[in-house]
Structures are given as structure tokens and as C-alpha cells.
């Protein structure tokens, strides 16, 4: 393998980063090992489990199947990009409240899959939620509480939106 190095630039969780990498580095390794964002997990490394899910250019992708140079110029969200310091994202909150986290290994991917789903479809029914997370395996929960969490988050986010709209009107 050549030791050829190249520099790529991208925006990750709202931050611009410039980093040296190789043509053979997986985006997953770049995120975990070079950027130390270890919220993204590696399960299978083959695109089957969804543990490595990130949002790249508004698409849900398995970062184990993406080569780092492909992220040049991209906009990336990892689990660390959700919520703010001391304040969780409503999806994360709902996961905790409903008991949707057991070992937690699938959770970052699940939360991002939920985020993507709710952006596209703010009022999903149970079947649509199931389909939305069908690329993310969970060995612990039996999925029921994860689905309940996403359902709860959907309700809360809609409520939030309506409240914001109400405020705008009053202004």
C-alpha cells in the first residue's frame, strides 16, 4: 500500500476541519481515531448493522463503507453534534425517558436514524418508524422502546414547532 497522504476539508458538527488522511482510511476511522469522536461505533464494518451511522450531506450513511477522501467538502453530523452542552436533543431525551437504551452500542446510530426520519417525516406511524430504523440493528431492546422513544420525540418536536410558530405570531 502506498503511503500517499492527502488533505481533506469538511464541516463536522458545525466545525470546519482540515485533516491529513490516506486514500485507504475509512471515514469511520477518521472520525473515531483522528477526530476522537468515539460516539460513532463500529459493529460489523460491512454495512450491515448501522452502529457507524452518520449523517453526511443530509444522507444517512454507514461510515464504515465510506472512504475518508469521499468526505472532502462534505457536511457531516455525528452523534456528538446533537444537542448542546448540558442540554440533550429531544430525541436523546426521549430515548432515556422510555428506556430505549440498554448497552447503548446501537444508540448513536439509532438516534441519528431517528433524526433523519423525523426530518423527512415529522409524523411517522409505527410502520414508518420501523422502516426508518430497519438498517440499525439492536440486540438488547427488542426495538419496542426505541420505537416508543421516536414516537415520543416526534410528538415533542411537533409541539416545539407549534409553540415557536405561536411565539412568532405574537411578535
Amino acid at each position, binding site marked *: 500500500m502506498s503511503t500517499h497522504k492527502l488533505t481533506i476539508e469538511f464541516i463536522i458538527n458545525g466545525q470546519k476541519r482540515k485533516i491529513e488522511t490516506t486514500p485507504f482510511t475509512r471515514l469511520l476511522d477518521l472520525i473515531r481515531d483522528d477526530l476522537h469522536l468515539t460516539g460513532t461505533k463500529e*459493529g*460489523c464494518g*460491512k454495512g*450491515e*448493522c448501522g452502529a457507524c451511522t452518520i449523517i453526511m450531506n443530509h444522507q444517512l450513511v454507514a461510515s464504515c463503507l465510506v472512504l475518508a477522501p469521499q468526505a472532502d467538502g462534505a457536511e457531516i453530523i455525528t452523534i456528538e453534534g446533537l444537542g448542546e452542552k448540558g442540554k440533550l436533543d429531544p430525541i436523546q431525551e426521549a430515548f432515556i425517558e*422510555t*428506556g430505549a*437504551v*440498554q*448497552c*447503548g452500542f446501537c444508540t448513536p446510530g439509532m438516534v441519528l436514524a431517528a433524526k433523519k426520519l423525523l426530518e423527512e417525516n415529522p409524523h411517522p406511524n409505527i410502520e414508518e*418508524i*420501523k*422502516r426508518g*430504523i*430497519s*438498517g*440499525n*440493528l*439492536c*440486540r*438488547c*431492546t*427488542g*426495538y*419496542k*422502546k*426505541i*420505537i416508543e422513544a421516536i414516537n415520543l420525540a416526534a410528538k415533542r418536536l411537533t409541539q416545539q414547532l407549534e409553540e415557536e410558530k405561536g411565539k412568532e405570531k405574537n411578535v
Partner: protein
Amino acid sequence: MKRFGRGIATIMFGFGYGEGFPDYSVASIEFAEDNKILVRTAAADVGQGVLTVVVQIAAEVLKVSPEVIRIIPGDTHLTKNAGSSSATRQTFFTGNAVKNAAQALLSNIYHYASIEFRSNYAELSVKGGYVFRVDQPNNKISFWELAQKVKEKGEILRAEASFFPRTNKPNPETGRGEKVYVAYTFVTQIAEVEVDTITGNVQVLKIYTAADIGKAINPQNVEGQIEGGAMQGIGMALMEEQVLKDGVTLNANLTDYLIPTAMDMPQFETCLIEKEDSDGPFGAKGIGEPGTIATAPAIANAIFDAIGIRFYDLPITPDKILKALKEQKDKKL
């Protein structure tokens, strides 16, 4: 054509290592400077929630809010043996060890407080991290102040306790014995399935579970264990098969070894039976493995109900079903 079937299975599960094995757990509790209570336990929380459960138990016994409690988890420098997170044993063993430690600490609180108050223990009570005289509730001292006072005497306000029950080996000839395991969890599950006779596919529609778990210390966790366990049982019944050849696993990846996804999830209906009839903490029993065991036989029975064919080896995959349906048809002709 889709055929509906319903099947039932009941299991009993003796948990802990049992059979005379020296199975125990040690825990200790002490006061931290920042107004927290520290529980030391090596019990590994792999997602089943044992640390949540021990926080609840310590808070319940010491009558403080769970937020006050902090865990010092497994570390060979800092904790003693709690045994493995296996055999469905942690809530029972470490739950009891923490409960015993909390009770021992509580008695020490009463002991030292009665000296402080120049009073008898029976005249004292605790609440919200304070110990006080019942007849003068405003005359109170916080646990941490008390710990400081004890320290000034050159002693430490803390407690360590263990849970080390005795079990017996069963008679090798009869398989019978007195208290071979610490306790038994009973689970009955009913599976409702739909068998597609054209594709051989089985869809599990609903799993009803009734679990005798003694006491659900954290009902949400218990449900989570049952739902997750049942889902693994569905995988075991219908899809999960390790293919070995010459000692080598041919499908050691998630492409060929299929586990259930959210699309395979049935409806779950769970009923927890709380008889508080064991020696577990507050009567609790283990639910880790029992959640998995009844599912596959219930599904196999449901498939029999749907198409009248018994399967004796798992997983009951579509190809096995189609082959059996063909044989059934050929026999009838």
C-alpha cells in the same frame, strides 16, 4: 395463503450459579465529601440495568433521593468481587449485597447519631439525608456532618456487606436436591404467528408474556429485558443459525447470520407478576435469560397450530417449512 396459529410455552429458570458453587457479591457504601453517597460494586452493567437497580435499592434503604448516590464501578483496586454479569444473577446477588450494606450503614448511622443526640436509637429517624430525633424533627444532623464527627473520633462511617447464599449439589442419580438454585423465575409466553404457505415465511404478530419476577425493582428495565429477550428468542426460532464446517463458522457475519430487525418486531404485551416470594432484594428475581427461553417453543407450537407440522430443530426457516409442507401434501395425495 396465510395461516394463523397460536402457541404457548412455560419455563422455569434457576438462576445464579447454584449447585453448591461459592457464588457471592460484595458491596460497600460510604460518604463522599461532596454530599454524595458512594456505592462500590464490581457488578458489570452491560445494559441490563444493575447499576440503576442498586442505586434504587440504596436510596430506598437509606431514604435519600437516587440523585445523591454515585457508583464506583468495577475496578480491582477499588471494589471486591461481585461475580459475573451472567446466570441472571446480578439484581439478586448484588442487589442483596447493596441492600445489606445499606442496612449495615443505616444501623451505623443510628448508632453514632444516638451518641450525638444523647438519645436512644428508637427515638431517631432518617429522611432526605438527615438523621433527627422524632420528637424534635428540627434538631437534625446530616449524614455527612455525622460522618465528619465520626471521622474526628478516628473512626469511619461506612459499611461493607455481602450476599453469600448456600446452594446444594443435586443428587447425581435422581437430579433432585434441596435448594439447588437460590430461586426460580417462571415465564409463560404466548406467540401468535402467521405462516405464509407460499413463501414459507413466518411473521410473529404478537408475544404475550407473563413473568413471575417476584418484584420489579425497575419495571421499565424488566420490560426491556423481556422484550429484548423475546426478540432474541424470535431470532433463535426463525433465523439465527451458526453454520459450522470442520470447526469453522461459515457465516460469522451479519450478512449471512441474520438477527431480527425492527421489521421483525411483533407487538409485545407483558404482564409482571410480583409475588415477592424470594430471598432477593424486596423479593425480586432474575429476568435476564428467562425472557429468551420460552419464545422459541411458543413459536414452534404456534407454527404447529397454523400448519399442523412439528419442527424439532431450530431455526424454523422458510426452506424447512416449504419442504415440510410439500411432504405433508405428498402424504395426503
